[in-house]
């Protein structure tokens, strides 16, 4: 459906169907700079159309997907990529959730340890009390 839509607004002379599929996949991974919640494939913005033509032109020149992405990153920064690359400035983004999970796990672990120790002490107190008092009660 999205494919038919993009075709309708922007017919491009693809060599074959495989190339068209590749184009659709690639533009779906790239962000429109003007309407930033849309990808290049779906956006109607003027600049998005220009960039689609740019991507198409680079494909005709035989550039790989990575080269085309790099071409856009060189001009518009990592912002154009929906999948930000893993590097020191994005470590928090990538590993932050795992960090929170570990912190949560640590809290749970500490709580469980503390509770079980408290129970053990309680039961020892109860044992002592039982011994002192005998079985009278």
């Amino acid at each position, binding site marked *: 459906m999205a494919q038919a839509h993009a075709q309708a607004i922007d017919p491009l002379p693809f060599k074959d169907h495989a190339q068209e599929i590749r184009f659709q996949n690639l533009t779906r991974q790239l962000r429109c700079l003007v309407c930033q919640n849309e990808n290049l494939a779906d956006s109607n913005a003027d600049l998005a159309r*220009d960039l689609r033509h740019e991507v198409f032109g680079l494909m005709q020149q035989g550039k790989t997907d990575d080269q085309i992405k790099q071409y856009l990153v060189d001009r518009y920064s990592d912002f154009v990529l929906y999948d930000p690359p893993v590097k020191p400035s994005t470590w928090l983004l990538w590993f932050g959730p795992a960090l929170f999970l570990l912190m949560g796990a640590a*809290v749970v672990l500490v709580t469980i340890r503390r509770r079980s120790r408290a129970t053990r002490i309680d039961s020892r107190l109860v044992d002592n009390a039982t011994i002192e008092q005998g079985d009278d009660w």
Partner: protein
Amino acid sequence: MSRSLPLIGFLLLVGLFGFGIWWNTQHDPREVPSPLIGKPAPEFSLPLLDDPARMVSKSSMLGKPYLVNVFASWCVACGEEHPVLMAEGRTLGVPLVGYDYKDAPEDAKAWLARHGNPYDIVIADQPGRTAIDFGVYGAPESFLIDARGMIRYKHIGPFTPEVIERELRPLIAQLKQEAP
């Protein structure tokens, strides 16, 4: 301690979200940082708006710093910025190059005739192809380029008198000292 743990967690979250709100009031989250700052400006060769037979290129502009201001007659925010450029453009001490972006030449000329022309020269990029090399994604945007053709500063959105005083003028003063 363990009883106050949920409260501490809650306060941490309040702090985190509060910081997020504060950060977004200080920064435009839509602003795309330019990877071109500190790098050579892309090669360009664009016709003058008034005389399309004459081309202006990066090499013809080398030797002194200049400010490129991307504008268009269809751009509403450029209308906001325009009076600021009219008032302060001449006092900056560097040539102000108007970059007419994806605009019909007649529209741009009419717009400049109506509102005044703050630019020393105006170059026209009607297809917008060169603008992609500059990482332009809207107008207005401005680039400060030094004597060696390096992009030293980019401002996204309209210039205000405050931004000019705080960011632009000190940098221009620095570039003029560097200039041969």
